[in-house]
């Protein structure tokens, strides 16, 4: 019986001591700022498109860091970004949130210049200053700077901005992943059957 009491007492005592050490360390070595936000921000595609519901990539990074938003709200980043975020934060990768939009091919804004009335609304909307123009003057998009974020389309009162997919060139083209299955892979038809059964 004594032994039991001694064991409990000594373990409690040790727990208190280590707890105190840990508590002190947490205060003493507290990391100022929140570098995780920077790390998350590095992984985001920086289109500043706001499709996640935040005004830009960094606010979304902050929201992820504060765990107020899931990691799957970034359509331009797509699955690659989700995977990278999941790796960084050690959480499960989620499928892209359909409400936030769909992961699609890269697009770039083009202004149909003869229809532009020079209202400057798109200039104000562009997060990366990629639209050139002045009041009552025709505007145009600096193609190399456009991130394809889509934010200029909505404000245009005359609807003269098109989002056009970036053309594939010999340089940007690459081979597709071989699509045929390995003979021992689960065959699509069978898997559909399996899901029905389940």
């Amino acid at each position, binding site marked *: 019986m004594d032994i039991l009491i001694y064991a409990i007492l000594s373990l409690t005592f040790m727990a208190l001591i280590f707890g105190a050490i840990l508590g002190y360390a947490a205060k003493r070595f507290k990391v100022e700022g929140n570098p995780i936000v920077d790390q998350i921000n590095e992984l985001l595609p920086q289109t500043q498109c706001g499709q996640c519901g935040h005004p830009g990539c960094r606010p979304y990074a902050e929201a992820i860091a504060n765990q107020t938003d899931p990691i799957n709200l970034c359509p331009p980043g797509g699955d690659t970004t989700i995977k990278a975020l999941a790796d960084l934060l050690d959480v499960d990768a989620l499928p892209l949130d359909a409400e936030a939009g769909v992961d699609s091919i890269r697009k770039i804004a083009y202004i149909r210049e003869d229809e532009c009335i020079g209202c400057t609304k798109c200039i104000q909307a562009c997060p990366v200053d990629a639209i050139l123009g002045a009041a009552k003057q025709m505007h145009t998009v600096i193609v190399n700077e456009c991130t394809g974020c889509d934010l200029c389309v909505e404000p245009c009162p005359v609807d003269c901005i098109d989002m056009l997919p970036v053309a594939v060139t010999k340089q940007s083209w690459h*081979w597709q992943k071989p699509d045929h299955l390995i003979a021992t892979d689960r*065959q699509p038809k*069978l898997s559909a059957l399996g899901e029905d059964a389940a």
Partner: protein
Amino acid sequence: MMNSISSPHLHGGNRSQKIMLLVIAAAMPGLLTQLYWFGYGTLLNLMWAIVLGLLLEAGVLLLRQRPLGFFLTDGSVIVTALLLALALPPMAPWWLVSTATLFAVVFAKHLYGGLGNNPFNPAMAGYAICLIAFPASMTIWTSPYAYLDLADQWLWFWTEQGQLDAITQATPLDAIKHLQGNTVDEMWAANPDIVAYGDAMFWVNIAYLIGGIAMLLLKLFTWHAPVAMLASLAAMAVLFGAGEPDLYASAGNHLFLGATMLGAFFIITDPVSSATSRQGKLIFGAGIGILIYVIRTWGNYPDAVAFAVLLMNLAAPLIDQYTRPKAYGQQP
């Protein structure tokens, strides 16, 4: 975009099935020698292991919703069954073979994702589980010459009925392990039957060596792992036998008794579960050689190939990590 096929448009005509068939062919001398010395038991083991292995594979593939037509031809189950049958004692009853096969095919292979994904050598995993679970049954070896005829063996295989005492005996490695105060030479002198056993094992090992060299010449694998294993085993035997040669088995004993050659050329060369690079294979083989010696000499089991292989299987990913070869132009 059209779906064009990437180069190369030529293929060497090498197929996995061909490799499997060659491995099976290379094991034939060993199988025949083993049958010659130790009777029909191995043959029954082999038949039963193949039949059961194929059935189990088919069952698991159905459960995993994989195509069935494919597995019958890939030959990997047959190789696993063959290795199991060769490794199991000739007097193994049906349930022992069944347990080993079940564990090899279902647990060691398919639960890890099937062909190409198993971290452990399936045959050795099946063997090891039996060695742990049924140590008594796993050590019944017949004396050379004194084996049962086919009918009696058949009866024994299914019912375990028959006169065993006359035909079973301790293996040489077992005898060396339990010297009971004698020196190795005294043991040999006192037990002519064990000497005869040793001779038989020698020829079996030679047969596997021949099959192994044939596979080496056919470039089914590189020399690295087998040579490293045999060399390290021999080196351990010389090193530790030097002080007290009377109490330790010699290098020759280690190389030509037990499952050494079977292990060196048929087990550790299994590409799926071994290290990848040439340097890695050297380390992998050497580790197995050392572990075989350690377990044989100081462990509980008289032979140790299965455990040594499984332990090094565990280490293979780590070895791969640290033995990545330098790519072209990447100077140190």
